[in-house]
């Protein structure tokens, strides 16, 4: 049977229970889930406050790159059963989940934690999504530092 792969750019709230149900098979016994949320107060480095983040995406390319990330996960961790990769866009306020990567497998000691970690790391490298940081002191686009190579 084919393993479920979900990838999407969403404007609505991320529904963890729904996504988890969709990537849980009869053979699944473990799920590793990473979710990131808007941090209102940053203490690491120079402290600052965030009023909200505004996300945008090059949607068709973002979804195709998310699919590519899922394929890379399957190549590296063939034991992974279901994969869900969802990024929410629009104006998102502190404490709101913005992204979710979940991988399921039969057991927890199969590399499934690493697979989910790889998924979020790759999303931040190659999936065309950007966020604008809006704080009481002004706003600026956050820019990454990864330059994709040929074939990525």
């Amino acid at each position, binding site marked *: 049977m084919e393993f479920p792969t979900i990838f999407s750019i969403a404007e609505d709230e991320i529904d963890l229970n729904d996504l988890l149900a969709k990537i849980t098979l009869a053979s699944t016994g473990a799920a590793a889930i990473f979710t990131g949320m808007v941090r209102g107060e940053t203490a690491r480095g120079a402290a600052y406050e965030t009023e909200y983040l505004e996300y945008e995406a090059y949607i*068709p*390319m973002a979804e195709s790159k998310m699919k590519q990330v899922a394929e890379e996960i399957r190549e590296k961790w063939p034991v992974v059963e279901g994969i869900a990769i969802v990024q929410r866009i629009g104006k998102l306020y502190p404490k709101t989940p913005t992204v979710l990567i979940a991988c399921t497998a039969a057991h927890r000691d199969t590399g499934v934690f690493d697979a989910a970690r790889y998924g979020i790391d790759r*999303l*931040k490298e190659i999936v*065309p999504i950007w966020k604008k940081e809006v704080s009481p002191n002004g706003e600026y*686009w956050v*820019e990454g530092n990864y330059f*994709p*190579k040929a074939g990525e």
Partner: protein
Amino acid sequence: MNHVKLLFFATLRDRAGTKAIELDIPSELTVQGLKDKISAEYPNLKASMSSVLITINREYAFDEAVIPQNAELAMFPPVSGG
């Protein structure tokens, strides 16, 4: 000539003042050639060209790549999703 669409995102969109343009480019123009053309025609974008990412038909493209007919191109800064 080659008629293409060029999309801008994030800082590039703000600096260009538009989400997308359509333009006619010479056949056989490369990605580097496109950067040179945009630098010349959009002075606000010139400073961005050294660190911009460019895609052709939704795949990352590099300086030597020749732009195919009727391509969908995009220019944007390194990504910051998550």
